[in-house]
């Protein structure tokens, strides 16, 4: 008789799998991609394609070179096949301005002259932020976010806010982001455009609040992310924006509320809260840790936006909190069921 299968209990397993989770994230990003195409034209698809391809090739080559095995078995076992590199690729692309594939001075006219920039950014994300630290689950920061900051520092002139160039015939919006003026009357006149995404953006994926919310609902229903964490970040930003921006600068209560709404609806906040701050490896593992993490992000976002030199602060805020995650995880962990606080611990 052939040998029976033996392993440690349990013998059955849930539907969750790394690849399926990554696929769910990619599906959740589709509305954002569609919104990007609608408001910034077809060039955005080129950006996504280039980033995904570069991400896959660089992770694939990295694993092969690292293991120094060049056979079919190694190809099959490469971590590039778990789809996480595509998530990084798409997220990085969504974080880039659509103008990277436009001819300078001619919005909407596609030109591939600068296409090497997203490629360099993607290689940085995969090789230096993700794989060099041990690959999936081990990276200290969100690779897409770190690469975006790397690109802002390196190619700052190309990474500014651009206006929409939409393909559905809406009035195109000029390039300034609301955060540079923080003008309450602009919110009351532009709130519908802000919601659907017809607004100037430095990252074409952040433009449509509605598209991101669809992705958020999908991820929550599929139990990929903890739905409370993005809510805490957004709610935290609303509260801190009220305290630091609306209270000192608003003249009436309705104006204060409009300012708070402007903070919540513009910039990379939604995209960052839903897709970046919920990244598994660069966020804390406990809910209590996540609350600290989320509130920290919210506070930093508002401080950078209101008191900082740049208009936009979500990526810096998340990156700073990413670096604090090991510290949070070191001190915030639950007390075992039936243990008293005083008797806990090894020493």
């Amino acid at each position, binding site marked *: *008789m052939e*040998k*029976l*299968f*033996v*392993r*440690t*209990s*349990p*013998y*059955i*397993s*849930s539907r*969750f*799998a*790394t690849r*399926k*989770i990554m696929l769910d994230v990619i599906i959740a990003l589709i509305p954002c991609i569609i919104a990007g195409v609608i408001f910034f034209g077809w060039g955005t698809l080129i950006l996504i394609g280039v980033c995904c391809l570069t991400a896959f090739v660089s992770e694939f080559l990295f694993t092969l070179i690292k293991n120094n095995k060049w056979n079919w078995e190694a190809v099959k076992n490469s*971590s590039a096949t*778990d789809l*996480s590199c595509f998530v990084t690729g798409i997220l990085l692309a969504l974080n880039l301005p659509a103008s990277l594939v436009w001819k300078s001075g001619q919005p909407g006219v596609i030109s591939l002259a600068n296409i090497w920039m997203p490629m360099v950014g993607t290689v940085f994300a995969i090789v230096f932020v993700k794989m060099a630290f*041990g*690959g*999936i*689950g*081990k990276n200290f920061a969100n690779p897409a976010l770190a690469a975006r900051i790397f690109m802002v520092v390196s190619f700052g002139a190309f990474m500014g806010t651009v206006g929409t160039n939409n393909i559905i015939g809406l009035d195109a919006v000029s390039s300034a982001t609301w955060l540079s003026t923080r003008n309450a009357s602009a919110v009351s006149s532009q709130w519908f455009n802000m919601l659907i995404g017809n607004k100037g953006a430095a990252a074409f994926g952040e433009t449509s609040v509605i598209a991101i919310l669809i992705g958020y609902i999908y991820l929550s229903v599929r139990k990929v992310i903890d739905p409370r964490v993005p809510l805490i970040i957004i709610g935290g930003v609303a509260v801190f924006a009220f305290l630091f921006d609306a209270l000192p600068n608003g003249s009436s209560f309705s104006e204060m509320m409009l300012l708070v709404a402007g903070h919540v609806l513009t910039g990379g906040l939604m995209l960052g809260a839903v897709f970046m701050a919920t990244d*598994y*490896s660069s966020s*804390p*593992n*406990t*809910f209590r840790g996540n609350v600290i993490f989320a509130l920290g992000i919210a506070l930093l976002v508002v401080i950078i936006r209101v008191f900082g030199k740049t208009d936009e602060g979500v990526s810096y805020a998340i990156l700073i909190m990413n670096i604090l995650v090991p510290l949070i*995880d070191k001190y915030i*962990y*639950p*007390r*075992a*069921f*039936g*243990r*008293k606080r005083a*008797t806990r*611990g*090894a*020493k």
Partner: protein
Amino acid sequence: MPTKFFGGVHPHTNKITQRDYISELTPPAKVFVPVVQHIGKPAIVKVNVGDYVKVGTLLASADGVISANIFSPVSGKVMAIENRPMGDREVTHIVIDNDFSDNAEFLPKLTNPTKEQILARTAEAGIVGMGGAGFPTAAKLTPPSGVTIDTLVINGAECEPYITSDHRIMLEYPEQILKGIRYIATALDVHNILIGVEENKQDAIDTLNKVIAANNITDIKVVGLKTRYPQGAEKQLIYALTKRVVPACELPSKVGVVVNNVHTALSVYYAVYEGQPLYRRVVTVSGGAVKNKGNYWIRTGTTYKDVLAECKTIDSRENVKVIQDKIKEKQSQLEKLDKSQKSEIKAVRAELKSLEKELSTVKSSQYIMIVNGGPMMGACTQNDENVITKTSSALLFLTEKEVNTVSPSQCINCGKCARVCPMRLMPMFIDAAAIAGDWAEAKKYGAVDCILCGSCSYICPAKRDLVSSMKKSKKMIATRGI
């Protein structure tokens, strides 16, 4: 009102056999009765080779308090007393040839027993906790001095997938169970009795309530529990029912609670009221490879092989060989054929293809794993000569489709394991510490408190073997005294 606890998972319940009435499985021609069917010391063999024993004859007697008597499940001649493998160790087994006369030799029946008589009888009849742990019931019913027990919890949760034995006995023997519970309560002198049943067994809750109402019982309450694994774990069950938290590394008696399984209560009834010692139990035989799935009274000492022979497989392993031979034959036929005979080659190839298809369907109905107990915490074995004991609540023959055969990949740090852990531990950190050999770190994140329920391994998207890291950490922390 459903009550619940922290964490937990909800695996597909797969309770295929929940509508199958309990029937008696034909006893095998030969039984192998191990002297260890409980936690604690092995019992001392009291019979010799050649002795004639009846059903219920004492084969081995308890060695101390944490041990239990072993009784003969069949009548016949003792053929051998030998060491056989059981799990990962060697255990003395008493081999008896069944003469199929079922001559019985029971203990005297007790009517209106006193507290002392009940206690003596549970010890005498070799009753152990039948939920899986196998702790001698008599020891459990004698709480340490200075401890007062005010609540008796009866565990009818049965949260493991596949298993339906407790569900069926609650439906078919409710009066007997309630009488057994009454005996246990008398022995403990408690008047607050809670029966916890998961809400996916609403019919069992209704049946018990009906009997309780018919007999005007006031101190027994049936409580519906949320269907969630591991609802039947002792500490989680006590918390769900009484909101009392059992301190770490302590027994439930610390908070005034004693937990017993429903099947244990049934066995107490048989021992006291009918004088029947524990020599058989209800076992759920299930899994994709079994043809006659069901709930059976099975004598202890019946080998898995004999159980499967009675319950039949959907397709026998010999069939695989027959088809494989046929395929070989066709292949040699194909080689002999000349290249010019195109139509013949085509015909043979088509036959070969259909045979291969048949082989794969037959193979998919073959079992690749034998599990004694549920799929979450049971023990799997390669040896089908292992036997049913007092603690075997289920025997599963699982096919490839049912078993997780995916090899583990790198942890993606999703934190799902921490979210489902009913003990509020951090399995991913314990796993990392165990791989690094840092046992102090493993202890910091609570490895010693792990109840090995397997929720973390179940939920893990990377299919990591977290439970084995837990087991290893527990062992290392205990042996090195960290």
